[in-house]
């Protein structure tokens, strides 16, 4: 009996029967109508669920035959795993949509009926194997869609609905004509029979028939340029209906397309082309879009096109289960995220993207919104991430490089407009309308989000990924999120403790370079978190994200497979982006960061895919067996990691981000996160370095590195904002590291790692010191500071140690880095690079002096008279870092030896130690002795001065007791030399650092938007134009 009730044919019967019953019941009892309606839907859902359970455990697909005759003479339905899954998903979406829209739907019982019949039509389309029957279900679905689109008599919706009718009717006309001709030639209406008798479809008639059917199906799949009507519908239809159209109806059509695909083998390249075009063009147009639902519409169109591409490109080439994994992952992701976003858009009732602001006030909504968008963009751990990864791997395996680029380009564009939307929603705008917290029913959104997490989990499980390291960071962050009510300091403490334990655990499992980076990054983060305790605010969300960041670094370091690496990379990108937005007005710059990071990630993904194509495995260790495209792969990695490092040309995100984010987080960004790029470089280098015979790529990289160093330093010279100055300085320092890495020999790599450690120590130190200063002075502009040495001697001392170390002046450890740098470069024969590096390091003096002078020396402002030393908790990490710097300065061997050993695995060591005496092929250096000599020569004059001073009366004077050309200084502001400090240098060399990169990227952005507007010219909004386009489309397909 139960089995009978769960027979798939019941789906149709239930729907029809309830459809008849509803108006009758409605006369008696309104509320029972609703109950009945939902019971019907739930029944359908249960049937599907039963199917899923049965078929996934291996049951054979059910063939339902009507009218007692066998096909082809009867209608038959097929109900297998795919069908049941899709029906289940669409039905669930339908139930939730109906629940959300209940108020509107139940006003008129006929809408309820229509909705039910609509669901039935969708399910019928999915199940039927008879092509004419398919036509009928298509028509049922279409008519219901038309009516439901315009059921609230909204003027826009009516226009859109009529356009949809024009397109839909044309589509079905083509479809019907095609079906009849196919029947004429094959004598059957059963799809399977037709596929089996494909040879019968010949001649002009056969060709025309297939083209007609194809056109009919494609129109409903909304490819560019015949989708103008659909976008209008998405924009104007009630949100729930739009959601259903976008996901459920599309699901049905996709499945129909998949069913009919065997008939269109000859058109597969063209369909791919159309889908590819649609994917890219829709995303280009999406860039220009400001209406939320239409934006989602473009995204929908693009996603469907992506799935079509996946199907057409991989169908028959990969196993069905893999194809199902890819398309299923993509589709499930689209289904859950897109429908939920449509609902959200409907509930919030904010038409334009610009109205989406102040979401920070409603953290729950923001969290859900962020998860949904992240899912759409394809960030981990959501299904699309895994699906896209697998798609890339498979495309690469089948040499579809062009398509890979297309997919990545489209994805990047989509990421741009979706994340821009997200970024805008974080904006704090002062206006009454949007500043109150949002009160909406988030149950359905929660369900979708949880479903996304679960499905992401499931898919990764299906892909055979070991889950614990991947999901641990997210779980830990979610766990910490539970304690978000605690005070900031407590949370910092908890985070620090967890991070220390986690680091300890991770470090036990790491070796070699990974271990060193692990120690550096994780321990560095722990030290910096200590600094985070200086603030009294609660800092909601900051610490969970920080933990996520740290643990994602752990994931990255532990990665044995490229998938794990990429996963960790993406997670790190995402968490660091979100952390940036804990700052006050970092939105714009952090958005740029995010976009560049997405671009970087896609480059890396592309490279991993190319590797996978050759090795067939995602093990990182297998990378060195590749035999072709080595240079290309390496270059892609380089670009990806250089973006993260802020290499020249890709650095435009960096200064803004560094200057706008929270001050203690900037230390982490500069000290830790930028090192991840270095780690990436070394990862690529260790695995690929040996395979590349062409030195050119390293040569280019080396030059890029030193030019970055030079221009980064030069840019830093001209900054007024202290954090921007340090940011450009970081760019310059990264330049040295890249150049050293590019040397591809032992000394070069040791230097690169040594410089990384150094940079972590001294730049972290300076950023922490300056964090205290900013905290006290409440400004980041250097010319508003000055003379703070008297108030904050400890911060000054930190900054002093930091700048001595950065500048490379002996005896501190910075010199070791510089010394090894030149030795390595001269050893390699890169003389001019060495010269340029020297120039860069000389320029570093300019900005370092400017920094320390304008902030700590010179004239103190009167309003800073009362300032006190930075908070104690900021000083502790500084002391730790100073101790580390001093220890490593005194005995460089303790630092260089492990680095050298780690690199010695890949290249033979060229460093020889005799005690503390270090020797390379050219030079030598004894850090310990140098330290002693310097101490000696420092003490000598000091003693002289002290002795002489005993006979002299020394008067301690105040800041205005200066020789001022016989005048007295007027104000500290006008006496302190700070603003435009290096005006003359700008006159001499400023033309080197015109913001060309910014201009370039601006023009890229401009060009993309122009591209978007050019593409959307075809959308005139006129139904007849759309009809003409459809006819033209048909003609073109016919003749191509």
């Amino acid at each position, binding site marked *: 009996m139960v089995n009978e009730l769960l027979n798939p044919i019941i789906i149709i019967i239930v729907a029809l029967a309830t459809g008849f019953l509803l108006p009758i019941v409605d006369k008696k009892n309104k509320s029972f109508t609703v109950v009945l309606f939902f019971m019907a839907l739930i029944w359908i859902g249960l049937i599907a669920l039963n199917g899923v359970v049965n078929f996934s455990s291996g049951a054979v697909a059910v063939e339902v035959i009507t009218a007692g005759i066998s096909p082809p003479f009867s209608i038959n339905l097929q109900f297998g795993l795919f069908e049941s899954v899709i029906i289940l998903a669409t039905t669930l979406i339908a139930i939730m949509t109906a629940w959300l829209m209940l108020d509107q739907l139940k006003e008129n019982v006929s809408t309820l009926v229509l909705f039910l019949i609509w669901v039935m039509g969708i399910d019928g389309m999915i199940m039927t194997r008879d092509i004419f029957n398919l036509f009928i279900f298509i028509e049922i679905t279409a008519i219901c869609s038309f009516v439901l689109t315009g059921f609230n008599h909204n003027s826009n919706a009516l226009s859109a609905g009529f356009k949809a009718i024009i397109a839909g009717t044309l589509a079905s006309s083509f479809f019907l004509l095609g079906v009849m001709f196919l029947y004429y030639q094959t004598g059957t209406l059963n799809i399977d029979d037709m596929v089996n008798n494909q040879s019968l479809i010949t001649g002009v008639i056969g060709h025309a028939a297939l083209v007609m059917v194809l056109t009919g199906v494609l129109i409903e799949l909304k490819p560019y340029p015949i989708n103008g009507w659909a976008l209008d519908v998405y924009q104007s239809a009630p949100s729930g209906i739009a959601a259903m159209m976008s996901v459920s109806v599309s699901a049905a059509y996709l499945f129909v397309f998949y069913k009919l695909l065997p008939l269109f083998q000859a058109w597969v390249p063209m369909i791919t082309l159309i889908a590819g075009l649609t994917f890219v063009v829709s995303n280009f147009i999406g860039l220009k879009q400001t209406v939320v639902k239409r934006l989602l519409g473009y995204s929908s169109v693009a996603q469907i096109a992506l799935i079509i591409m996946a199907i057409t490109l991989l169908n028959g080439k990969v196993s069905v289960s893999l194809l199902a994994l890819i398309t299923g992952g993509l589709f499930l992701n689209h289904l859950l995220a897109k429908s939920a976003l449509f609902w959200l858009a409907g509930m919030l009732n904010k038409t334009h993207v610009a109205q989406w602001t102040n979401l920070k006030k409603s953290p729950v909504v923001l969290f859900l919104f962020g998860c949904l968008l992240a899912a759409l963009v394809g960030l981990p751990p959501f299904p699309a991430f895994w699906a896209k990864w697998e798609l890339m791997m498979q495309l690469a395996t089948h040499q579809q490089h062009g398509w890979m680029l297309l997919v990545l380009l489209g994805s990047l564009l989509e990421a741009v407009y979706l994340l821009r939307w997200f970024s805008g929603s974080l904006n704090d705008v002062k206006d009454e309308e949007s500043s109150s917290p949002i009160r909406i029913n988030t149950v359905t959104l929660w369900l979708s989000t949880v479903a996304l997490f679960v499905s992401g989990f499931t898919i990764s499980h299906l892909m055979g990924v070991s889950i614990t390291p991947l999901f641990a960071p997210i779980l830990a962050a979610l766990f910490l999120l539970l304690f978000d009510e605690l005070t900031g300091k407590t949370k910092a403490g908890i985070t620090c403790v967890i991070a220390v334990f986690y680091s300890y655990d991770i470090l036990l499992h790491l070796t070699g370079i990974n271990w060193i980076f692990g120690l550096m990054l994780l321990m560095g983060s722990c030290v910096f978190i200590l600094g985070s305790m200086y603030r009294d605010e609660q800092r909601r969300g900051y610490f969970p994200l920080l933990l996520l960041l740290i643990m994602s670094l752990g994931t990255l370091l532990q990665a044995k497979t490229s998938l794990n690496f990429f996963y960790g990379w993406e997670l790190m990108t995402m968490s660091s982006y979100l952390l940036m937005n804990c700052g006050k007005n970092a939105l714009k710059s952090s958005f740029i960061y995010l976009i560049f990071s997405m671009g970087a990630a896609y480059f890396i993904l592309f490279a991993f895919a190319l590797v996978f194509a050759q090795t067939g495995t995602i093990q990182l260790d297998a990378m060195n067996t590749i035999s072709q495209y080595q240079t290309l792969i390496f270059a892609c990695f380089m670009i990806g990691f250089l973006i993260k490092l802020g290499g020249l040309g890709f650095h435009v995100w960096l200064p803004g981000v560094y200057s706008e984010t929270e001050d203690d987080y900037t230390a982490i960004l500069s000290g830790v996160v930028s090192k991840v790029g270095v780690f990436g470089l070394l990862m690529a280098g260790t695995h690929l370095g040996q395979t590349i015979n062409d030195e050119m790529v390293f040569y280019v990289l080396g030059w890029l590195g030193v030019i970055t160093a030079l221009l980064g330093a030069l840019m830093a010279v001209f900054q007024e904002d202290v954090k921007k100055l340090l940011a450009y300085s970081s760019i310059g320092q990264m330049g040295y590291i890249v150049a050293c890495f590019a040397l591809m020999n032992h000394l070069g790599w040791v230097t690169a790692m040594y410089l990384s450690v150094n940079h972590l120590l001294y730049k972290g130190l300076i950023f922490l010191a300056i964090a205290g200063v900013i905290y006290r002075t409440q400004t980041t502009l250097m010319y508003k500071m000055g003379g703070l040495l008297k108030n904050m001697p400890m911060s000054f001392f930190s900054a002093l140690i930091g700048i001595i170390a950065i500048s490379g002046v002996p005896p501190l450890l910075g010199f070791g880095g510089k010394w090894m740098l030149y030795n390595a470069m001269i050893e390699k024969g890169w003389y001019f690079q060495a010269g340029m590096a020297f120039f860069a390091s000389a320029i570093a003096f300019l900005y370092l002096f400017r920094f320390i002078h304008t902030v700590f020396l010179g004239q103190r402002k*009167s309003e800073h008279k009362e300032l006190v030393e930075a908070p104690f908790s900021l000083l502790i990490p500084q002391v730790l870092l100073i101790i580390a710097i001093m220890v490593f300065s005194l005995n460089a061997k303790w630092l260089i030896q492990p680095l050298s050993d780690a690199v010695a695995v890949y290249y033979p060591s060229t460093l020889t130690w005799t005690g503390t005496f270090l020797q390379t092929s050219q030079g030598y250096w004894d850090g310990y002795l140098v330290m002693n000599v310097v101490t000696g020569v420092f003490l000598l004059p000091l003693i002289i001065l002290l002795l002489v001073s005993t006979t002299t*009366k020394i008067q301690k004077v*105040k800041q*205005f007791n200066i020789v001022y050309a016989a*005048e007295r200084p007027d104000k500290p502001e006008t006496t302190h030399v700070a603003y435009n400090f290096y005006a003359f240098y700008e006159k001499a060399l400023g033309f080197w650092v015109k913001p060309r990169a910014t201009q370039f990227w601006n023009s890229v952005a401009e060009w993309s938007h122009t591209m978007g507007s050019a593409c959307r010219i075809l959308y005139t909004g006129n139904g007849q134009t759309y009809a003409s386009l459809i006819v033209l489309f048909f003609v073109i397909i016919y003749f191509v």
Partner: protein
Amino acid sequence: MKNEDNTFANNGLLPEEMDLFCNARPVPYEPYSIEVVEKFFNWMRANSLWIMAFGTGCGAIELNPLMTSRFDANRYGIQVRPTPRQSSVFVIGGYSSVKTLKRIIRSYEQMQGPKFVLALGICTINGGMYWDSYNTIKRLDHYIPVDVYITGCMPRPEALLSGFFELKRKIKAGECDGANRYVKNLDWYKDNQKRVIKKWDMPDYNW
């Protein structure tokens, strides 16, 4: 004028400027306790006269030829330093208006002891041709201690040189303690200064 802890009250300053200037009172320095040492240093002071490059009046024009080939004061260890911190000789170049006097005092106080003043021209002695000018001081030694006067209007560089020789002689003899005199009689000097300088918008002693 005085605070309880023997510092200056600095009444001329605005309240918010008080913290920007040092208000300590200078104290006189003692000669080296060993006489030979003192003599030795005096000899060196005499042979290393660093002039403060501040032309306070028309007489400054006579300083330029002093350094040229014709007179070559350089050979006597005389050279010009552009900052009062490093100079030891202040050559007052003739008449000094009240406005200039203020700058002279400021620069003089910024010089480090031992320091010497060479007053040039009749105007520094009794006002000279500006005897009835409402804007020119008549006696320089009422405002800062003067070691050597060179009279004339204008005295020629030769006269200047001979003035320097006199200064050297006095230094070697240990007679030039103008800086100490100034410090010891500071209140008298300050009274005189404040009597003519009505806009006293600086600390009482310019360190």
